[in-house]
Structure formats: structure tokens, C-alpha cells
């Protein structure tokens, strides 16, 4: 990295690399143009244009009784799920990677596989009945627990892989300086897992819809689906504007995490 080649080969490589990165940027940015234009269009269609600029769509949403509260509900659900998932999974992963449990990997894989059933549509009836039995219908906690149960195996899996490969020496040296295992976990692995549960919960429709009865508690994903007509035609003006609002907290979260943690592991761990 310290050496700077100025040979033509290096220049070609460099040009190739920037061309690739430009194409990449285009590929990832292109679909998002609609989100930047449609919300500000008085009669949005599927094309990217602002033929008649307006903020009317947003003012309609501000007056909507459920739109803004639903963003708050989503924050509660996603935050609660993230907290429980990361907390529980990190603790479990730490314990599992530090103490030998017979058949540990097998159990973990089995759980990971089962989680695919529970996140599917077919588990709707059992999940509903379970929540009903536990008096968790129309409760945010119910939704959070259902999500958490489904996400923990994947979270443990990701975390364990890194706690496994974290050198014992680092841990030992950290312990020397008085760090607890939890501090280590917080600094090392939270940044990676954080967006996972948040994103998963943020976009989910069916589970919160069947478990929540009072629309005051609907998360944004459910409210987004209410902007249709009786015949199922989307109200693109409201949907695009709400999509933008709905995406903003996620983007803010990204900016925060990225600023605070760089969205990656701390650089301090080297072998």
C-alpha cells in the first residue's frame, strides 16, 4: 500500500477499476431514482419525472391518522427486536463459542433451518394461536417476540463465527484491562448484526398485521399497504411519498451506525 506503481499496467488497472466502480454505482443508484422523484409529483406514474412539483403528497400524509404514528410503531418493533435479538444472541453465541456443548453445531443448524419455517406463510396459524394463548394479541411485545424467535438462530450463527475466530489473546488482554465479556461483544460484533433484525422487521407485513388488532399500533409496512383502493389499485402519490418517509429512519440509522462504527468490525483486532 505504501508503494506507488506508475507503470502503464497500473494505470490501466486503475482505469478498469474506476470504470467498474462507476458501472456499479449506476447499477445500485438507478432503481432509486423513482423514490427521489415520484413523491414530489402531483400525479406520479411509473416513470421517473417531476412533471408537476408538489409537496401535497406529504401534507396529506401528515394529516393521515395512522401514517406518522406507524413510523414510531415500526421504530418500537424494530428497536425492541434488535435489542432482544442482539442481546440474547450475543450472550448465547458467546457462551456457545467459549464452552463446549455436545452437538452444538448440529443444534444451531437445526434451529437455523426451523427458522425458515416460522418466517414462512404456512406458520401463520400456529403463530397466531400461540400469541392468542399467551395473551400477546394486539401487543407489540408479541410481535417482537415472534420476530426475535425467528431471528436469533441466524444472529447466533453470524456472531459465533466471529467470536470463534476472535483470538483468545485479544480477549485475554481485554480481560486484563478489566473489560467484561459483554463489553467485548458490544464493541466487536454489534455493528455487523445491527441492521439485520432492524431491516427484517421494518419490512414485514403479514406477522404484525395478523397479530395487531388496533391500527394505532400498525407498523409502517402495514400502513403502506392501506394506500390502495377497494379494487387494489395503488395510490402512487401516497405510496411513493410514504415510501420515502418510511425509508428515512433506516437511512438515518445507517448514517448513525456508519459514523459511529464504520459498519464493520473495529480495526483493533489483528492476529
Amino acid at each position: 500500500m505504501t508503494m506507488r506503481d506508475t507503470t502503464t499496467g497500473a494505470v490501466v488497472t486503475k482505469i478498469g477499476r474506476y470504470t467498474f466502480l462507476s458501472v456499479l454505482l449506476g447499477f445500485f443508484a438507478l432503481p432509486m431514482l423513482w423514490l427521489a422523484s415520484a413523491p414530489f409529483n402531483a400525479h406520479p406514474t411509473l416513470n421517473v419525472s417531476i412533471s408537476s412539483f408538489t409537496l401535497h403528497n406529504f401534507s396529506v400524509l401528515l394529516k393521515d391518522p395512522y401514517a406518522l404514528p406507524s413510523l414510531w410503531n415500526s421504530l418500537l418493533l424494530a428497536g425492541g427486536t434488535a435489542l432482544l435479538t442482539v442481546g440474547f444472541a450475543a450472550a448465547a453465541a458467546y457462551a456457545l463459542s467459549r464452552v463446549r456443548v455436545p452437538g452444538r453445531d448440529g443444534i444451531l443448524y437445526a434451529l437455523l433451518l426451523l427458522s425458515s419455517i416460522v418466517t414462512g406463510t404456512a406458520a401463520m396459524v400456529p403463530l397466531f394461536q400461540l400469541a392468542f394463548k399467551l395473551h400477546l394479541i394486539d401487543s407489540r411485545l408479541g410481535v417482537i417476540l415472534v420476530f426475535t424467535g425467528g431471528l436469533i438462530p441466524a444472529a447466533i450463527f453470524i456472531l459465533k463465527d466471529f467470536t470463534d475466530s476472535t483470538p483468545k489473546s485479544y480477549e485475554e488482554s481485554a480481560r486484563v484491562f478489566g473489560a467484561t465479556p459483554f463489553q467485548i461483544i458490544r464493541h466487536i460484533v454489534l455493528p455487523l448484526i445491527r441492521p439485520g433484525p432492524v431491516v427484517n422487521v421494518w419490512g414485514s407485513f403479514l406477522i404484525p398485521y395478523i397479530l395487531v388488532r388496533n391500527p394505532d399500533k400498525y407498523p409502517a409496512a402495514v400502513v403502506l399497504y392501506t394506500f390502495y383502493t377497494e379494487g387494489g389499485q395503488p395510490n402512487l402519490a401516497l405510496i411513493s411519498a410514504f415510501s420515502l418517509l418510511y425509508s428515512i429512519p433506516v437511512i438515518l440509522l445507517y448514517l448513525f451506525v456508519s459514523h459511529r462504527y464504520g459498519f464493520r468490525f473495529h480495526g483493533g483486532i489483528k492476529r
Partner: protein
Amino acid sequence: MGARSARSRNLRDLTSPTALTAIAVAAVTLAAGCSSSTSAPGGGNVNSANQPKNPTLVITANDISGGKNAAEADWITKTLIPDFVKAEAAKGITASVTFRPNGVDDNAYKSKLALDLQSGTGDDVFALDGIWVGEFADAGYLKPLADVAGTQVNDWDGWKQIPNAVQALGEYQGKRYGVPNGTDGRVVFYNKKLFAQAGLPADWQPKSWQDIYDAADKLKTLSGVTPIQWDGGVPMGEATTIQGFLPLLAGAGGSLYDADKGKWLKPGKAFTDALGFYQKVYATGGYGDSVLQQDAKGRDKSFAEFAAGKIGIYAESDYMWRSVLNPSGGTAPMADRNTGVGYALIPAETPGSGVRDQDFVSYSGGSDWSINPKTKYPQAAWDFLAFMNSKAETESRIGGAAKITARADVNQDVLAGDPMLKLVSEKVLPITSFRPSQAAYNDVSALVQKAVAAVVGGTGPAEAAAAYEKGLEALVGAGSVAGGS
């Protein structure tokens, strides 16, 4: 039977918490239903004299303020409930009523409703689509209204105002399960401007399918214009069945189900003729845009195209007029809707070839309001249903906006100002047909959509009909299928 019911009992333990009692109750209800229909638990002893003085009701519908069916949601909370509470207070009853909005995809609403009812809770009064009545009744989620709220149901004066055909929306096996609150009708819309350019009359009324082909031939000469949109794709879902296929089937004199025999019908000549219409429009005649039928957003896009003057003829329900093209608040508003859009009855294949030898045909759907059989306040729930479907409240529900209600007296008053809806109410409803209220309808409809999509994609009608027949037998069992139409 003994072994089987023991097994279902075990299953019931797992599918519902209150297994044994539910089974027992269901058994008692069934027995009661057979002998006399008035002594069901929950509602059998309804007596308006000793009803609770402080009933609480929760009512639900797939409406939400600010979103889907917002107008109805606002009406329920702001007008209907206060009016009802006032009316009850006059009778010395302190009712407390809350509305639980939903406003999502109909299938999701249906699932949630089923889950709630299955768990033995669920809201006291709820709205449901007319075609769900059969499957909900079979599942035990619904009981005949008279079993729930007593004989007063049949004495309600409102029934006289609801035409028999429309009442069928709330009926199953000859019993009333719900009060219909509105209906619709299918017609052929056309763009008058394009018709003028193609030299077609402004007051067009096709008398046969051939008339439609002839008009399409002329429209075909205009550049950038798709002559016909006749819903024909799997992604359009039920729209393909009710908007597209069923009116054609009825026009050829056929139907999917024979209510007298209680059997589904094998595809016969009428079925292949209806598929032949699709073949003509999308394959041989080149009148329609077959790619659009496969588009996941095909219905939205075809609405937008019609509004933009790119489609000549469009078979749709009055919903298109009210909620799509409506210059105020439609999803694809057309500023000159009132002058620029024409509408005609859907012709039979040839004059007189339609069901009941009709010259013109249509299909209708609609929703009902019904009562949860497990409600604690069946009397109040029925009072609420009757109140909400009274003439005064029905008028207030639709407000200024014209919309076809179940009540003839209301339609007469409010539809005078909207010639399109007036036509549906006066000319279409008398000749319309309704989908079979059978639990299997949903799946049969999916088979129909597949057959239609196959023809739109180039398969021959006979081949597609054969595949439908095979699928139908696999679905309902060969014993439930009778010789065709």
C-alpha cells in the same frame, strides 16, 4: 365416523385451544340446526325485552381512514356509530360501539378474519366479501343470522328493498348469513373520442360479440391504440374471472356451477366459446395487448392506458367509473370522464344466447355485513346491522358520491344524478349473475384464470378447456362435477 371424529378431536386440540367445548358446541349447533333453526347457543334465546342494557360492540371492515375505503371508515366512525348510539339511547340502552379499521389486501383481511373467528374471539359485527360466505359458513365462522339473532331477522323490513338477486350475496344453502350492503355490475366502457376518430357511433351498443370485433377492427386502424382490454391474465387475479371470463361464459349461455344439482360443471361449448373470444381478441384478431395481461401490474397499467386514451374498449365494473376514472379522487383520473367515456351493456355471443336466453349479460359481486356467532350481544349486533342498512343510514353512507347500494329505494334516489350508475342499477342488475357461493370457488377461479391465460398466450380453447376440466376434477373430485355447459 367414530374413529374419524376422535381423530378430528385430537387435531382440534392443536388447531384451537378450546377444542372439546368447540366440538361440543359445534355438534349441538349442528343438531339444533337440523331440528329447529331458532335454538342455537349464543343467539337462540334472544329476546329484545330482557337484553343487556349496556352492550358493547366492536365492528370491523376492510376500511381505514386515509387509506383503502377511507370514505366508509370515516362514515362509520363519524356518522353511523354516533347515530346508532343515539338511537339506542332513545330505547333506554347505553350502547358503546367501536370501529376497528383494517384497510389492507382482501386476502390478508380474510386470513385475519378467519384466524380471529377461529380462535373464538373476533369482532361482533364484520364486513366480508359475498363470495366468502360459503367457506366461512362451512368452517363454522358464520351461522345463519336467524340462528344468531332470532326470528326478528327475517321480519326486518329492509329485505323488501333488497332485490332477491342481491340478497343472494349474503345467502348460502338457502339461508341468510349476511346483509348485503352494496353491489356492482359489469359493462363495456369505450372511449368516445377514439370511437369518433374510427368512425364509430358515440352511443354504441354492441348486440353480439361480432359487433365488438367489428368495432375493434375499425379501432385497429388508429395508431398507438389498443382496441380492446378484456382482463385475461393470472396476475389480474379475480378480475380476470369476474370482469373478463364470466360475462363471456354467461353470454354464451354457460355457468361454472349448477346450484340445483349442487355440482360444478364440466367445460362445454359455452366455456370454449368464451375462451374463443379471448383467442380472437389476443391471438387471431390482434385486438388486445397480450403482454399487458401477463404484467404483474397489468390492471393498474391498463387503467392508466384507458385514461390516457390508448385503449378503445374496456370491460369493467362500475368501479372503474367511480374509483379509477373519477376526475375527483380516481387512481387514473380522466378530466373528461363524463363526456368522453361511453358505456354499453355486455352483449351475449349472439342475441338471445345468454343465460336465461338473455340478449345482454353481466356479473356482480359485493360485500355483506354479518354477525359473529360468538358475540355476547346478538340483539345489539342485529340492531346495529339493521340500523346501518336502513334507508337513512345507507343514504348517509354513500354521501354525495353515487354508488350502487343493495337497497332499491336508495338507488332510485341517489343514482339519478349519475347516468352510468343509473344504467347499472336499472338495466344491469336485473340481468346480472352472481358467482357461486361455494368454498371451492376461489380455487376454481384460479383454474379459470389459468385457462384464460393459456389462451391469451396462444393455446387453443379446446386444449385449455381440457386442462381446466382435469384441474376441476382433481380439485373438487369427479363426483362433484356434472356434464357441462
